[in-house]
């Protein structure tokens, strides 16, 4: 048997090992893209597979989600490449000489059918579970797929081993009606307790279903008891201008003993909605997953669809995407730095930060027509080019903002009262951060050295030189300082991109998107890693779009970091993470 996979070098050993270890238990192996390797596994292998990847290859389970293919139109293996193999033959001599988007599926001898348990078996009557693993140092993703029979709709929980999937698993249970086995707290999550029993992400559920008024029981929080212990409920409507969520503090005197979160107040049926829209409209919907990350989410979505369609945006488009991603990072970081200061009563700094943020947002509007960079993203590239004068204005902005921001940094550094409040407040230790799989800036402020811009370069990042600041104290001060350092890096990135701006078109024609393809898109947004996974359907539509915002991963960081802190420090600790409720709830 010969196996030629066009996969990145880093994935080759893990693949060989996995096959040696699990042998016949592994079904079809498929690599539609060099850094995206799919492996079919039986459901009862999910935990063992996860443990192996984690222990042996430091793989992170970045997303778990389900897909309803009980009535999938195609009965063949719903991955691309099986039929299209002729156009992307495996590299002959083992050298990865296949085009970047080329896909390969394993074959056994001359048999054109995929090998393994799934070979030739139609997917009728099953749900699929997908487990997406990132192998950061190896620059590749391994995606395990397990079938859940419709007549036995249950799946084993991995939460005890991987805490980060707690809500993700419960969400699958709520939205697909697949029962969780062995979950430590298998209660409702995405659909609140008072909802009737409906499974919105099943294909036989209509998006526009009008549900009657909810009559079910209200949520019962866990009781926390003890001498002098009392509970403080907050939300879902908060005192400030922020998104809704419910926090229940259990306190003894001032310090917080335990924090319970209740989210999904702004669950909007977004993933279901993607299935009803033409792909092009999906870009606009992606902009509305988390408004402060409009461009990052839209770009992750485009990235997924572009990978499915095997097209690559032209260099200038990728450069423009990079500029916009960094502008998004700068304006959000500026706002957060200000808000953190205001939460410890240093309002002057906040005002300066807002003033600078306003300048960035106005430039966003001048460059892209919208202050939140909305309308800029599109499939195959970007919609608007920056002309010479706009690029000049961008350079100007960076040149003037840099010293002004430095002055603001100085101001904050001078304020010993502010530092006192921020240092040692809301500590997330590196051990805990790693254990919880905390991502993005919150992770990097707690020693978790990961950034998709470096580990899985997208857009234009592989052509740039920049640092990924990492701090280890894990307190509010670190998260503030990390933002500060990242802003300086963003300035440098913008200058580099602008200096070497490639010429040429800003958009590749997308054409018709082939159905029955799956693809993972990813972007390091300002908050952290964003994943969009799509399965395409006929007629330029999507059969499934899974969205993973870093916030979903990071809420447990807040519940850990607040322990032992006083309730009045909660706002600043919360702000220092600034997670997106809408990104979480969708």
């Amino acid at each position, binding site marked *: 048997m010969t196996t030629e996979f066009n996969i990145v070098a880093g994935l080759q050993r893990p693949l060989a090992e996995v096959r040696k270890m699990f042998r016949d238990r592994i079904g079809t192996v498929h690599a539609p893209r060099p850094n995206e390797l799919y492996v079919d596994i039986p459901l009862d292998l999910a935990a063992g597979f996860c443990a192996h990847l984690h222990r042996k290859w430091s793989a992170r389970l970045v997303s778990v989600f389900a897909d309803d293919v009980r009535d999938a139109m195609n009965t063949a293996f719903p991955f691309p490449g099986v039929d299209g193999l002729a156009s992307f033959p495996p590299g002959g001599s083992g050298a990865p000489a296949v085009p970047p988007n080329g896909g390969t599926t394993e074959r056994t001898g001359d048999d054109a059918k995929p090998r393994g348990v799934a070979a030739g078996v139609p997917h009728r009557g099953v749900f699929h579970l997908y487990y997406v693993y990132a192998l950061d140092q190896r620059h590749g993703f391994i995606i395990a797929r397990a079938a859940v029979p419709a007549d036995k709709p249950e799946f084993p929980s991995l939460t005890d081993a991987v805490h980060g999937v707690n809500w993700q698993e419960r969400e699958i249970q709520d939205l697909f009606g697949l029962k969780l086995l062995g979950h430590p707290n298998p209660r409702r999550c995405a659909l609140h307790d008072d909802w009737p029993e409906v499974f919105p992400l099943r294909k036989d559920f209509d998006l526009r279903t009008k549900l009657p008024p909810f009559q079910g029981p209200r949520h019962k929080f866990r009781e926390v008891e003890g001498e002098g212990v009392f509970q403080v409920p907050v939300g879902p409507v908060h005192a400030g201008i922020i998104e809704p969520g419910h926090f229940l503090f259990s306190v003894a005197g001032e310090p917080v003993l335990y924090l319970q979160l209740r989210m999904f107040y702004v669950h909007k049926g977004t993933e279901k909605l993607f299935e009803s829209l033409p792909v092009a409209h999906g870009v606009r919907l992606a902009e509305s997953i988390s408004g402060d990350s409009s461009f990052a989410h839209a770009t992750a979505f485009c990235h997924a669809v572009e990978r499915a369609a095997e097209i690559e945006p032209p260099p200038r488009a990728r450069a423009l995407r990079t500029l916009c991603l960094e502008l998004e990072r700068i304006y959000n970081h500026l706002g957060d730095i200000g808000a953190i200061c205001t939460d410890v009563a240093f309002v002057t700094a906040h005002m300066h930060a807002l003033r600078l943020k306003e300048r960035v947002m106005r430039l966003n509007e001048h460059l892209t027509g919208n202050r*939140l960079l909305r309308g800029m993203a599109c499939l195959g590239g970007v919609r608007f080019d920056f002309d010479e004068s706009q690029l000049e204005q961008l350079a100007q902005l960076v040149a003037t903002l840099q010293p002004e921001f430095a002055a603001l940094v100085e101001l904050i550094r001078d304020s010993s009262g502010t530092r006192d409040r921020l240092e040692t407040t809301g500590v997330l230790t590196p051990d805990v951060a790693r254990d919880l799989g905390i991502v993005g800036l919150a992770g990097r402020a707690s020693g978790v050295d990961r950034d998709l811009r470096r580990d899985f370069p997208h857009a234009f990042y592989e052509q740039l030189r920049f640092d990924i600041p990492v701090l280890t104290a894990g307190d509010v001060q670190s998260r503030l300082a990390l933002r500060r350092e990242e802003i300086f890096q963003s300035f440098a990135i913008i200058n580099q991109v602008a200096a070497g701006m490639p010429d040429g078109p800003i958009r590749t024609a997308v054409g018709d998107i082939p159905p029955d393809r799956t693809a993972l898109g990813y972007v390091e947004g300002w908050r952290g890693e964003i994943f969009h996974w799509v399965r395409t359907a006929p007629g330029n539509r999507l059969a499934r779009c899974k969205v993973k915002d870093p916030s979903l991963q990071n809420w447990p960081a807040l519940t850990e970091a607040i322990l032992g802190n006083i309730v009045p420090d909660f706002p600043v600790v919360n702000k220092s993470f600034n997670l997106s409720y809408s990104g979480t709830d969708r």
Partner: protein
Amino acid sequence: MFNLLRESLRAGIVTTSYPATPAAVSPHTRGRPEIDWSGWRDVRPAAAVCPTGAISHVDHDGRRTVQFDLGKCIFCGLCAEADTSIRMTNICECAARSRGDLITEAGYTLKPDGAHDRMISPPSSRTLPLDDVAREIQARTRKLLGRSLHIREVDAGSCNGCEVEIVNLNSPVYDLERFGIHFVASPRHADMLLVTGPVTRNMELALKKTYDAMPAPRLVVAVGACGCSGGIFGENYATRGAVDAILPVDVYIPGCPPNPHALLHGILLAIDRLPERT
């Protein structure tokens, strides 16, 4: 301390003089689309690319009614790329007191090939009747609350884009406080509820309770395409759509999100404090 003062002095006054002077926005800004109604020959290409259904049509008996709903529009500009009868303006201040004011309709005769022909009824906004009592109560509320206003903001389901811009109203550039307008922490202190949507099923109850906790008289302002109409989300299993599906709304502020000028304009419209500009 010295640095603090120096920085403030160096920054100088950055506050906009809006609304006394027009909003200073870039010519590249995408505001409301402008439609050449009488010259419009075919609505279908624009309707096909419009992601929110803001442009729609109904054909009946050889006649086509075309509708443009500013309350649904996210100012993306895709229609203007597809159709030369539509042009994007940079006008963002579109707030209106009635939902109907945001909807424009025109009638055309239909050609066999599906394009339209002659305009037979000129564009007009869809006026929704407001009874006299309601009108009077609104006017008196505006008068009562005109001087100083306390706002409670409620995110009833937004993507947080509207919140990004609402927060900016507190920046020194827009400085809402110069109008005597403040954001307050409790609905019990509030005269106005500034609501972003779409209202989700999971927030419906909290929104109602927040409203009920406010003392009368009170105003409700629906913010953004989602607050005005449900936006790209519309109504689905998880959302109720527009804010006015739940609460009586006094002013609608279109945009996705409305920029701070548009928000200011809408809030001042709600309390009758927009200056006359010549």
